[in-house]
């Protein structure tokens, strides 16, 4: 059968149209029109209109998005959609990133790959998030898809350099290989078993446009990397790991002067560097195309001035790993970044550094202030002062994530007024149950102001001392909220009840260490089928309630974890999600799947 590129509309000669009956013509018209629908939400809506629209969507959809790998079986997916070219699958819930799930929890890619390898031989793109992927999977992937172009693995684990070597060897048309925050299996004490995967790319010109391996902590064959970059004329994005030192980084930049996105690796010199070897001509001055900069995993401050020439062009700067430079050095960089739209930085920036950001980065859309170490010995490097400064200076802000040790309602309220376009608000006050640092009441009013004033808000992540009042605000005004995370907050069941009944668009709800129990949980029965998942850990939900809900709602899966020795009523972790599949059989022993 002819391989049809589903994104290109078919051409129907007029004679063919005239000779068919009207119904068939309608189908052809529908097919042609639907091919212009690319957004998955639009397509989902279209497929619900009637059976023929459903059929047509199934025939023409080329991008598959599976938000929960356990919500549906691979078999059912491949039987519905026949011409998929791109697949995105998400596995573990987000809090797995913080060690809150057992290591062997699941989310295996293998069963999906098996289904795809026979059903979609022309698959081009695979994007996985928080899935478990093995070397064998990667090898099978390379064998199964002759036209494979793009592999993106975000927060995945289970594979090592042999798997990467298989991809490099077998996927001859590869354009994108991105390994973001993925734990690559490497024996760090002696690097045994490391495969030189960089050398496995085919000879001759490659199609590579993006190569990201900053989280792969293994030594790299630097010579092979240089040769690879030299024969990849389309390469625009290159993020190397910490084994690449400045000397080699600069050589790579000279070889690839048209890079738009660079991850600098360590930004350090090798240990045995002699004095006279340390004169490097910085290629940053000559770079006209660089707009995204990241890396700096082991930064040598003396080289920081090298990047000054490109700062004025940068729209994205990830400085979160630059952990031995001080505030002044961070300021020296950000004060030059007039066009910056996204900044990820450590709280070592201090409030005064945030003030510099506020003065300089008038175009800022996204700010993330990370906290790297549990105890830095410095109290409150960033606080309400910095947040308020940002709110006054960066009016276009849409996304803020802020780790801090102290915060006030007034600052959060100011943010809600100065930055009404906020879509994402994530505040992590590190000390638990922290009230307003200045005036001591709960942080309710700040949260309330955010949901009231930021009318486009879709994601909210709250912490600090919050009472039922905060949740009543969220339920009343947070009508667009799709993702809500609640950490160590809440008063009574009323809080959760207000959220479940009020937030009509809620898709993902994460609650950890809250006082909410069965009563609150049962208030959401009407809503659970509309949600992607619910996570409740260290709350007051009992096993009986979970069992009852599982029996009441047949398409809901409740996964319960309890590690306590004595049989207790309260479950430690409830992970609940809708599913059209039978309950999974690959759960570890700790997990009980109720259905």
């Amino acid at each position: 059968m002819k391989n049809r590129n589903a994104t290109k509309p078919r051409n129907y000669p007029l004679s063919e149209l005239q000779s068919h009956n009207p119904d068939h013509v309608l189908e052809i018209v529908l097919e042609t029109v639907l091919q212009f629908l690319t957004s998955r939400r639009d397509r989902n809506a279209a497929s619900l209109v009637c059976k023929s629209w459903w059929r047509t969507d199934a025939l023409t959809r080329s991008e598959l998005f599976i938000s929960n790998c356990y919500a549906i079986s691979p078999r059912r997916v491949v039987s519905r959609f026949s011409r998929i070219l791109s697949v995105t699958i998400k596995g573990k819930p987000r809090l797995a990133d913080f060690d809150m799930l057992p290591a062997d929890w699941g989310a295996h890619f293998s069963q999906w790959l098996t289904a795809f390898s026979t059903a979609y031989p022309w698959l081009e793109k695979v994007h996985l998030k928080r899935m478990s992927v093995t070397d064998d999977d990667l090898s099978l992937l390379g064998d199964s898809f002759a036209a494979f172009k793009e592999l993106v693995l975000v927060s995945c684990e289970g594979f090592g350099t042999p798997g990467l070597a298989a991809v490099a060897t077998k996927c001859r048309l590869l354009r994108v290989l991105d390994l973001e925050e993925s734990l690559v299996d490497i024996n760090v004490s002696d690097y045994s078993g490391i495969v030189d995967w960089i050398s496995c790319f085919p000879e001759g010109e490659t199609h590579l446009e993006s190569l990201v391996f900053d989280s792969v902590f293994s030594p790299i064959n630097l010579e092979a990397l240089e040769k690879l970059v030299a024969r990849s004329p389309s390469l625009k994005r290159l993020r190397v790991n910490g084994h690449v030192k400045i000397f080699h980084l600069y050589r790579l930049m000279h070889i690839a002067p048209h890079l738009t996105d660079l991850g600098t690796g360590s930004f350090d010199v090798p240990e045995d560097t002699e004095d006279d070897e340390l004169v490097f001509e910085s290629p940053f001055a000559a770079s006209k195309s660089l707009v995204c900069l990241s890396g700096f995993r082991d930064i040598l401050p003396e080289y920081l001035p090298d990047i000054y020439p490109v700062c004025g062009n940068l729209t994205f700067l990830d400085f979160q790993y630059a952990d031995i430079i001080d505030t002044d050095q961070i300021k020296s960089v950000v004060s030059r970044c007039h066009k910056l739209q996204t900044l990820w930085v450590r709280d070592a920036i201090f409030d005064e550094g945030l003030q510099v950001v506020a003065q300089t980065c008038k175009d800022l859309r996204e700010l993330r202030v990370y906290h790297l170490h549990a105890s830095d010995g410095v109290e409150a490097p960033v606080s309400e002062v910095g947040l308020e400064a940002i709110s006054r200076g960066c009016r276009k802000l849409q996304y803020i994530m802020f780790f801090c040790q102290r915060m006030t309602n007034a600052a959060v309220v100011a943010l809600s007024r100065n930055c009404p376009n906020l879509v994402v608000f994530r505040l992590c006050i590190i000390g638990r149950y922290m009230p307003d640092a200045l005036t001591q009441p709960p942080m309710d009013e700040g949260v309330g102001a955010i949901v009231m004033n930021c009318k486009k808000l879709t994601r909210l992540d709250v912490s600090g001392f919050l009472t039922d009042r905060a949740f009543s605000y969220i339920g009343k005004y947070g009508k667009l909220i799709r993702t809500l995370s609640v950490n160590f907050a809440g008063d009574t069941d009323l809080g959760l009840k207000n959220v479940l009944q009020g937030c009509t668009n809620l898709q993902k709800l994460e609650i950890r260490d809250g006082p909410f129990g069965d009563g609150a949980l049962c208030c959401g029965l009407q809503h659970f089928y509309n949600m992607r998942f619910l996570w409740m850990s260290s709350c007051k939900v009992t096993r009986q309630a979970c069992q009852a809900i599982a029996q009441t709602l047949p398409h809901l899966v409740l996964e319960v974890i309890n590690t306590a020795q004595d049989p207790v009523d309260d479950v430690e972790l409830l992970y609940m999600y809708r599913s059209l599949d039978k309950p999974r059989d690959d759960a570890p022993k700790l997990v009980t799947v109720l259905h």
Partner: protein
Amino acid sequence: MWQRSHKCSLEEEKKLELRLGPPGEEDSYNEKSMKNVKKERDESQPSCTNLTNKSQKRNATSPVVGWPPIRSCRKNIASGSSSKPLTESQHVGQEKVATSNKPISNSGKDLFVKINMDGVPIGRKVDINAYDSYEKLSSAVDDLFRGLLEAEINLSDNNKQEEDKGIMMKGSLIGSGEYTLVYEDNEGDKMLVGDVPWHMFVSTVKRVRVSKSSDLPAFNPGSKKD
């Protein structure tokens, strides 16, 4: 203070002002809610009726899994020692290399000399001006090389091993007398570190070597350095 407006239809909201409950109710409300929340919690803290005390007391709890939400790979990625201070001046574990060729941005006068150790092929550089006595220099060199020596023994060429710091060799290398610091001055002479006053040492030192004391018959092993 904030006042809650009574007509709260969304279309008419211009400026929203919020009110915290009636005066006087707050403290007992908070106290009650604190008790609700704190009941049967694992992180047992003294019941905190006084909310005006600084945050530190309430934070002094048993560590909780996944809080604060920092990815473990992020903690590992911060290479070098895991307890990195925020300011560079406190940073001792892995001295960073600087060279006289590169302009140093704002760290004042630095005097970097190369230090080599017997049995370790890779030398390090130290900013002599960061110390003001032989003792401090000696202990810094100890810290520097202990990890390296351990790594050599493990036949590994990766210097950034945080886990090795946990199994460090007992006792100091130099204090025990097993190793001795020698240096080469600006006239090319080999000298024992500690022979001259500190400021003279700083102005004449060119490179330093950590030698096994048994290899230096001319020097008195275990000689004190001030």
